[in-house]
């Protein structure tokens, strides 16, 4: 219902999604701080309750995002040792004790302050004893209740409060839109991170979360269609369920972070930054102006500045005047138009590199092609390691090199490696095959549509050159441990992304 000043009542729906809600925190940095949006009510379920608690406490969007960026994922892990002797009758695999003792204090949660929250908010938890959803307000929030809201059966122990058993509400509802509507919301702003990909994987762990996805998505979509029907009925002058128009503004994404299994701080920081980028793009499309952009680094500057570089040698053929990759390769092979790219990829700031979704590095080196005039130095170049366009199971490595031919004409070499899981063992060929196109002029990603193609073809890393490449890694940093850590983070990023693409049978998203 519109507020006294006539503006619509806005509800922020912080839907659950395990630790995928790190993405949600990034969205909040943009919505609350950069766009300056305000909400009259907020609802939280499952993991969303964490973000809701922080919102109730009065933290800014950037503070909530930084809390997730700075969270050490292993800190919350607490094995339920005592129960393991009971084997299949164990209470749960893990306990939430570390969340109480380490994570919540680390986030600076102040229960008193949250209880004093002046804004309207609703937390959701399932009361198993009474078999009903329990919606509670900030004034009622306790540490036990917050912990109970994320207590997923089998993974964590149920919480007993006043003799009654409470668990995560996700199997009942993952976003209490009905509560928001009941409280008079006109607009529902939903941040939905539960996967809707619909890829069925086998195994106990995969099935558990597929059950969650079933319950959460099923309920959510049912409510959405009720709202759609309500709006339609209003337009047609029929009786509408909610009696007024309800507008749903949804920002959903496939987040490259597993609901529960994650050991990499870099990966959760990257999920936060993905949320930031997705929200900025979403606001642009919705026509919501942004007041400015905030940094995407963790607030603490403990990470030393580290640099990393390696060289890559790729060779192959391109066909002049061709636009198709296979045909261009064949034409080039027949005519002998050999292309050799000798590249040095330089990562300036490993921290920025691994936590930014674009994973961008600079490229130096030479592109050699007799037909274009011999060895052409690269004036400037960028490399993006394993990036995706929203589907984390299909990634690309992107190369953009600006060179000049021997007559001084500017050329752009734009290439990509297609990293996705096709039948058979294709990891090697995917990561070693660069589909290459050379354009006239200095062309950026947006300008490729209208640019003139000079040559197209395929270049590859040979196995021997790849083995040599592994020996070319050089790391710079203030101390040996910093350097080793940087190399480790780079390696984990690379392997983790490859897991997302090729090893989903083992775990649907890479755990590091």
């Amino acid at each position, binding site marked *: 219902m519109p507020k006294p000043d006539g503006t619509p009542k806005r509800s922020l729906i912080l839907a659950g999604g395990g630790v995928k809600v790190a993405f949600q925190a990034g969205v909040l940095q943009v919505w609350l701080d950069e766009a300056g949006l305000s909400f009259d009510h907020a609802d939280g379920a499952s993991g969303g309750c964490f973000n809701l608690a922080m919102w109730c406490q009065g933290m800014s969007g950037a503070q909530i995002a930084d809390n997730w960026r700075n969270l050490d994922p292993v800190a919350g892990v607490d094995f339920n040792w005592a129960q393991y002797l009971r084997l299949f009758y164990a209470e749960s695999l893990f306990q939430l004790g570390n969340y109480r003792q380490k994570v919540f204090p680390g986030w600076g949660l102040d229960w008193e302050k949250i209880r004093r929250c002046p804004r309207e908010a609703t937390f959701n938890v399932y009361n198993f004893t009474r078999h009903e959803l329990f919606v509670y307000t900030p004034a009622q929030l306790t540490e036990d209740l917050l912990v109970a809201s994320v207590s997923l059966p089998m993974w964590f122990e149920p919480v007993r409060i006043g003799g009654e058993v409470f668990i995560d509400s996700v199997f009942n509802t993952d976003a209490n839109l009905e509560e928001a509507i009941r409280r008079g919301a006109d607009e529902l702003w939903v941040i939905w991170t539960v996967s809707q990909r619909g890829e069925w994987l086998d195994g106990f762990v995969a099935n558990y979360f597929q059950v969650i996805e079933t319950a959460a998505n099923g309920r959510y979509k049912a409510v959405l269609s009720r709202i759609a029907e309500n709006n339609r009925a209003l337009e047609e002058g029929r009786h509408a369920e909610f009696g007024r128009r309800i507008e749903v503004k949804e920002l959903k994404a496939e987040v490259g972070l597993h609901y529960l299994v994650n050991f990499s701080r870099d990966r959760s920081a990257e999920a936060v930054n993905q949320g930031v980028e997705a929200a900025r793009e979403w606001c642009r499309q919705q026509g919501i102006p942004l007041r400015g952009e905030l940094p995407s680094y963790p607030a603490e500057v403990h990470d030393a500045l580290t640099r990393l570089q390696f060289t890559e040698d790729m060779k192959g053929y391109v066909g*002049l005047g061709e636009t198709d990759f296979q045909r261009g390769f064949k034409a080039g092979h027949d005519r002998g138009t050999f292309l050799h790219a000798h590249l040095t990829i330089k990562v300036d700031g490993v921290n920025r590199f691994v936590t930014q979704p674009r994973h961008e590095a600079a490229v130096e080196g030479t592109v050699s092609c007799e037909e274009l*005039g*011999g060895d052409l130095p690269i004036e400037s170049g960028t490399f993006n390691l394993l990036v995706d366009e929203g589907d984390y199971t299909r990634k690309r490595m992107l190369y953009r090199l600006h060179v000049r031919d021997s*007559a001084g*004409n500017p*050329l752009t070499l734009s290439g990509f490696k297609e990293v996705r899981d096709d039948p058979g063992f294709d990891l090697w060929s995917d990561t070693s095959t660069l589909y290459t196109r050379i354009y006239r002029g200095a062309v950026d990603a947006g300008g490729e549509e209208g640019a003139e193609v*000079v040559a197209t073809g395929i270049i590859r890393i040979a196995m021997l050159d790849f083995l040599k490449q592994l020996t070319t890694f050089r790391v710079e940093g203030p101390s040996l441990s910093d350097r080793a850590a940087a190399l480790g983070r780079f390696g984990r990023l690379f392997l983790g992304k490859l897991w997302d693409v090729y090893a989903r049978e083992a775990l649907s998203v890479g755990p590091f």
Partner: protein
Amino acid sequence: MIPEHFDAVVVGSGFGGSTITYRLSEAGKSVCLLERGHPYPPGSFPRSPLGVRRNFWDPSEGDYGMFDVWSFSGLEGLVSSGLGGGSLIYANVLLRKDEKWFVREDHDGAYEYWPVTYQDLEPHYERVEKLMGPQLFPLDVAPFSATAKTLAFRDAARARGLDWNLVPLAVKFANPGEPPAPGALLKEEFPNLHGRIRLTCTLCGECDVGCNTGAKNTLDYTHLSAAKRFGAEIRTLCEVKSFAPRQEGGFTIEYTQHDPTGPSKRDGRELAPRRTITAGRLILSAGTFGSPFLLLRNRANFPHLSDALGTRFSGNGDLLGFFLGAVREGRPRLVDAGRGPVITSAVRGADALDGGGAKGRGFYIEDAGHPEFVNWLVEASQAPGLLRRLARFAWRRVKSRITGDPRSDITEEIQALLGDCALSSSSVAVLGMGRDVPSGRMRLRKGYLDVDWRLDDSRPYFDRLRGTMRELAQELGASFKDNPIWYFNRVISVHPLGGCPMGRDRREGVVDSHGEVFDVPGLYVADGSVMPGPVGANPSLTIAAMADRTADRILGLEPAKGA
């Protein structure tokens, strides 16, 4: 700033470029001719040792001279750089390509197909000849009749029953309507573009190092002076580096303006700024080593150029031979190769295509004189003899003083010091050329031009050619010596041809039979690189005639967009 625009821009002022510039400006088009070298008015060709040393084209060293020397894996090449192109250093022969040598479907050694016939070129040959005014060497008029090398060559050829003739030369021996006379003031219909006086041929033999009297009827006096009168814009010391098609039609051309007082590059970076102009049509006439190189380097701007780019290279069968120490009746025979225009006559070896029972590939052998000062070098090189003569002269003078010899006339002794000059006066070089096999290929290697022409593909032709040279040497009593690099399986060519050959379609050639590049309308090539095989005779007239035919095509079309 909007760059200057011309109807046509021509790159290079050789036989092709000058012809095009003349024809287009005569038709009223705005033409800009960009020539990388200097203009050379009479008297400007260097003769001092330092001048000669610097007279080479090497911009990175600060040399912007006339001779451009190349060395490739299979052969050496010598071309020129200056206003007038090859005409500045050539030996003036204007022969037409033999009618039957326009082969079609020839698979001997390498595929050769001429999509143009002698009949197609005949009107163009006539037009160019009219402008250049070739004259036969006036062997029947004194003092030309005493030119020893021509007489010797003629006598030797006739004794062997070979086909010997005087050849048409683009040299002024006479004013129109007057008898030929050496060193006479030349009367021109219009003043030439250098604004200087010219004399008739003085028989100094310096044709190949630049004619300082202006007797050679080079392109700057013929085509380019006329073009300038018609309003053509001629820019020298302007070297074209890159060109690209414009979206709105036409071309953008970038060139560097060389500063002759210093080198053009330092630390690999160009010093001179680049200028940009645009044109409705672009004609590349930078020569066989120039036009294909420019196209190869700018390949990225023309990705659809034919794959035939770089093919059908040949040296026109060029081969140098030396006749040393000609003898007649036991005594040195006077050949005097330093007197007279470099080339005056030719022996023709028939081709199997001519019919009449000849076997093998056709050729020409031409007497190749040299400048007089080379004779001094030859004599000075006879070091042992010179020391002996110096010693004997010194001894005679001392003896004369000691014995009080009354004889005061020592003319004979001075003469004895100079020796009998037998070697320089009895030797001559010959230049052979003809139908070798166009199996060479030009490509870029590390950004430089590379040509992989192999002598062995044309060995039967060279053996036949050398055989006839040997015959002639024998007839003169001289010993026949090959150019020393022959023993390394190499030749030096002054007539490089091909690289941008013409063909019936884009599979066969880069340009069509009118010189227009396939799939790039408005871009033309008009120089020796369009020849799909050797010309056989000296190629200059054929290059000019082909360019004249290209000019017809340019003038016949509607103007390109952007004009």
